[in-house]
């Protein structure tokens, strides 16, 4: 991969939520970057903070978010509300998991596609309308004129997700954030949407940050992978390295817990126990309770991301001073 400029650099991103039980560190010191035209997948199980990370980049989180978000040179974290708004939906767009509830039920599809066009560009209503019809066709929906006038409840999940993509691409963004875009879709529709996303990305050399829990989707779409667990990044690397030689025990566990078409195993490998409660976690490797390689140091100190071959991994198994 030639060294391309990075479109987005996330540096020490943290998002903490006050709840009745205490402070939940949903995202805790997360750093990664997305290069131009590259697809980075953030993967992890529910509660690992992958969605909050995506929402924080878009500034859609209702709690104070610390850390820097360099997007095309500008630090989104320091932008005024007005400037951030001018970036959102324009250079940086987002699509969500539940297409059925992500569109306003009482406004027509066309009106909701035109909105970003009219806000971010000096289009007239007529031009915006024409562009919207074009976008509907671009995302592979026939009878665009009729769809333009219809309401969200008249369309299927797959079609609504395509409309969401149309809305996101309306101002030709440099980066698209997709938060579990196909999780709520049936497998044949998911294949269509993933295909669409990949072709659009290649045509526009658009970089993409895709959030998912499905390793199949990661293998399908990703160039670079960021694995998260309990609010922290535990491993990053190119998709080939991560799948060929996973380093962190959790990544390995994830890879071998999922039954894979074509290679049958007698008994699935399981990661015992469950995700720890994110409230008042003591400094340690949060995975130590479920890890069979757990050592004493894992229970006392939190490992940091270290370079190991071409991947980064946060695990004491790979720390120099421990191994020596």
């Amino acid at each position, binding site marked *: 991969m030639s060294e391309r400029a990075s479109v987005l650099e996330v540096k020490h991103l943290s998002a903490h939520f006050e709840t009745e039980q205490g402070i939940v560190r949903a995202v805790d010191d997360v750093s990664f970057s997305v290069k131009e035209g590259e697809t980075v997948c953030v993967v992890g199980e529910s509660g690992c903070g992958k969605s909050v990370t995506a929402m924080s980049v878009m500034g859609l989180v209702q709690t104070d978010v610390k850390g820097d978000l360099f997007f095309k040179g500008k630090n989104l974290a320091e932008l005024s509300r007005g400037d951030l708004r001018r970036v959102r939906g324009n250079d940086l767009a987002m699509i969500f998991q539940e297409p059925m509830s992500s569109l306003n039920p009482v406004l027509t599809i066309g009106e909701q596609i035109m909105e970003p066009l009219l806000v971010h560009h000096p289009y007239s209503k007529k031009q915006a309308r024409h562009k919207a019809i074009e976008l509907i066709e671009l995302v592979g929906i026939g009878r665009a004129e009729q769809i333009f006038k219809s309401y969200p409840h008249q369309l299927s999940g797959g079609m609504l997700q395509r409309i969401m993509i149309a809305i996101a691409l309306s101002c030709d963004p440099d980066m698209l954030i997709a938060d579990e875009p196909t999780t709520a879709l049936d497998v044949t529709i998911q294949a269509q949407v993933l295909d669409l996303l990949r072709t659009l990305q290649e045509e526009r050399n658009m970089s993409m940050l895709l959030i998912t829990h499905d390793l199949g989707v990661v293998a399908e779409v990703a160039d670079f992978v960021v694995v998260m667990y309990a609010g922290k990044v535990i491993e990053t690397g190119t998709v080939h390295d991560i799948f060929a030689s996973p380093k962190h025990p959790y990544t390995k*566990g994830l890879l071998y817990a999922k039954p894979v078409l074509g290679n049958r195993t007698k008994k699935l490998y399981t990661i015992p126990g469950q995700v720890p409660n994110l409230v008042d976690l003591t400094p340690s490797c949060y995975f130590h309770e479920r890890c069979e390689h757990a050592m004493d140091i894992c229970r006392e100190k939190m490992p940091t991301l270290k370079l190991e071959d071409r991947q980064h991994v946060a695990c004491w198994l790979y720390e120099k001073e421990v191994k020596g």
Partner: protein
Amino acid sequence: MSQSPLIEVKNLKKYFTQKSSLFDRKPSPVKAVDDVTFTIEEGETFGLVGESGSGKSTIGKSLIRLHDISEGTIKYRGIDIHNKSKKEMRSLRTKMQFVFQDPFSSLNPRIRIGDALAEPLLDHGLVTKDRVRDKVKEVMEICGLPSYHIDKYPHEFSGGQRQRIGIARAMVMEPDFIVADEPVSALDVSIQAQIINLFKELQEKKNMTYLFISHDLSVVEHLCNKVGVLYLGSMMELTTRDKLYENPLHPYTKALLSAVPIPDPTKRRERIVLKGDIPNPANPPKGCKFHTRCPFTEDICLKVQPLFKEVEKGHYVACHLV
């Protein structure tokens, strides 16, 4: 082979009629299940696969009479369960059970899990009051739940643990047939693996028979030994697991298998991407229901609904071209 199969389903049909609302003339009934026939042998795990609107959940619920059916017969050990009186049905209930999909809404939040598990035993008089607590602890341990959790409320458990409670509840009366309606889809991968292994252990230990309903083809491949593929309420293909995964015949099954993303970047293969959307179950396409999305449609497919015929030994397909 025992004489009659454990479960026999013949020409099962289930139509839902919608109430007339303000603006639509005469709402056509939704054919959720449209003439489905299959059998499940003792000790078998029958996989029912299909996308949304395929009717798999409706079939699951009909098999243990959680709701009534429009036409056809469902026999359990030769007994037609849908023309039994409510009282007779009650005793049959101990023989067949159901595991629900959503761990968070399938447990009564206001009852301790120990009582929830003891209740069916007491209500059916299977166990006396003094011995019921031990029986509950025993079934909890089998399902991988430490028995000291017996007096806790559902909100104190994680999703995975709650699903174990749901399974324990289905197992407590020692039925010989369980319908599992997407039991792992709401769980994360690592927890999913634990529950799948549990299903397999229980089958080996207790010689259980399952109807396993799922939209996840890789999970079905792992667990089931016979698989039926549903589309818009009709069975498209039905055969053993090996034949289906190694030699799928129906275009829809082929497309389904090729659409499943494989967690291996080296295997990014060309796949059959079906065009169009799943049609509205309220007015399914004429002829073969799949013709609107099938890459090999011919004009016969538009007019005549294909017969569900045995193309090879133990391999049924509903397609004109096979």
